[in-house]
């Protein structure tokens, strides 16, 4: 019970802090940083819904991010949508990203694990190349977002709240999925796809559905980001650094957990911007990003939150397990079943901490 209280308490504090952030911090840079952080919370949570739960690491989610941005940009241009009405284009961005996720998944999900990663990178570069070379995206000249008639004083704050709403939506959705039958099937696929199939899990539709949902949310994040930045180019929409960043955020915080990507985004995004500013050199900060990625994979491959969570689960199981007779548990790794039909309450927990 205390644990649940701690969890909800922490959540309440976090949300309250996120809502109060623009009121407390008024300088321009911080507001931009707040917006970026929220966009990345949403994007990392969206990435985690697919890659974290299923174990299929995508390094091509910028495809959805960029396509969401372009979908809004192209629609606004062609249909002459202006003002706050552009936010009505968000569902379109989500739908386009979701639609793209279908062929993306049908191609990439034919292969497993490492090959899958390579295929997602290849698809990513196809999109970047196409966006640079076709007329509808205006090639390398990019697109401008429609002008929003928001006063410069409130502009940042409003966008911050839009991004915050999106982040909350993404995290809520990933929480919902994780506890659901769908989420359990995804996590079973992550652990052993063939075994899951043998227990009735239809792996392909499940994986594809996760990719589509994940792509749609990433597309939303792309569109909101585009409205804020004001323009979009193939290099900024389909950005390999985006692919690495969302993956790194999820890895750092904890792949497959709900809170992990949130933590990762809230730590990494400010850190990255701070470094870029301090070093006065974007390349150097990108190199540092790579170094951090390596360190996380080597030192903390499962991320902060799952590692802590597993410790906790093991600890709780240990507390629940001890045999009724006598508090001291036998230390020998006991056989799980003693002879005979009905076992007496024997040695309770066999090697809880074997790893």
């Amino acid at each position, binding site marked *: 019970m205390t644990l649940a209280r701690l969890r909800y308490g922490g959540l309440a504090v976090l949300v309250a802090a996120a809502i109060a952030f623009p009121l407390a911090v008024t300088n321009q840079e911080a507001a931009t940083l707040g917006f970026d952080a929220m966009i990345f919370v949403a994007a990392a949570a969206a990435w985690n819904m697919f890659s974290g739960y299923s174990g299929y690491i995508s390094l091509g989610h910028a495809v959805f991010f960029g396509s969401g941005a372009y979908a809004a940009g192209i629609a606004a241009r062609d249909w002459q949508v202006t003002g706050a009405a552009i936010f009505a284009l968000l569902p379109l961005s989500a739908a386009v990203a979701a639609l793209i996720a279908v062929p993306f998944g049908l191609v990439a999900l034919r292969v497993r694990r490492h090959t899958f990663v390579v295929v997602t990178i290849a698809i990513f570069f196809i999109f970047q190349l196409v966006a640079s070379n076709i007329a509808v995206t205006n090639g390398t000249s990019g697109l401008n977002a429609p002008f929003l008639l928001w006063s410069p004083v409130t502009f940042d704050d409003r966008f911050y709240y839009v991004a915050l709403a999106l982040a909350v939506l993404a995290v809520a959705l990933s929480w919902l999925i994780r506890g659901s039958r769908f989420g359990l099937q995804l996590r079973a696929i992550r652990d052993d796809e063939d075994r899951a199939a043998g227990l009735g899990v239809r792996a392909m539709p499940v994986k594809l559905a996760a990719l589509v949902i994940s792509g749609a949310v990433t597309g939303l994040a792309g569109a909101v980001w585009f409205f804020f930045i004001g323009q979009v180019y193939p290099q900024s929409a389909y950005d390999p650094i985006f692919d690495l960043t969302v993956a790194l955020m999820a890895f750092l915080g904890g792949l497959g957990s709900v809170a992990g990507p949130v933590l990762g985004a809230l730590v990494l995004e400010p850190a990255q911007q701070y470094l870029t500013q301090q070093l006065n050199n974007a390349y150097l900060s990108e190199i540092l990003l790579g170094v951090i990625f390596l360190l996380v994979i080597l030192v903390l491959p499962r991320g902060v939150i799952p590692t802590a969570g597993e410790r906790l689960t093991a600890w709780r199981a240990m507390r629940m397990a001890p045999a009724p007779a006598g508090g001291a548990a036998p230390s020998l790794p006991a056989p799980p079943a003693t002879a005979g039909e009905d076992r007496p309450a024997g040695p309770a927990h066999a090697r809880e901490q*074997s790893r």
Partner: protein
Amino acid sequence: MTPLLRAEQVSKSFGGVQALNGAGIEVAEGSIAGLIGPNGSGKTTLFNVITGYERVDAGEVYLAGQRITNAPPHKVFALGIGRTFQLTRIFPRLTVLENMLVAAQHQRPGERAGSGRPWRARNPLARAGGPAARRRAMELLEFTGIARHAGALADTLSYGQRKLLELAYVLVADPQLVLLDEPAGGVNPSLINHLAGRIRELNAAGRTFLIVEHNMEFVMELCDRVTVLDYGTVVASGPPQQVRDDPRVLDAYLGVDVHGEGASGDGAGR
């Protein structure tokens, strides 16, 4: 009466290795059937073919008269065949209870779909495992004797406990037929007894089994009928006593072979 499971003239080759060569097996409903044979004789391949993990080159598989040849694994499971693996396969990063609930999501139509709320069974975002599924899962964990580990990560289970978990979650969806691939392999004698007892109890309640096993004592005690494979072909089939004394079976195991081929064991076929 049609047998519950019938495989006919099944052939399967991997490259140059003919793992199955016209093999067939029949399992009567309510029986415990055994499948034995030397290493590389094609036992696991036959399991894989039946459960959809391998496609046949030739031959047919029927479940209760219905053709299931080359059906994908999830479909075979939905139709009522559950299986375990020789090298025990569980979901290490799910808890023991969650392991159980993976299979619980696929109860056959008409069976306890979320306690009278059919929409629940279709809503993918419903919480994993309704009360009925959880109760059933806990019952089976009690039955196999690992209920006290329900909340622990499956990764922390010992080898024997994993075997029990695998048996338990295969049973969750009430399969008509359970295929066990070396259930007694690598586990201690008391656990073997425990397993045999559980299998017998389930069989008494009407469940059908097909068991691949190297432990002869286990097979001979448990099985009503034993089929012997050698080089992908059935060399003998019948009640345990009869099969045990069959000279062809002794040949297969001991390699007493006038043609001098010897039982060198084509391990690649497995």
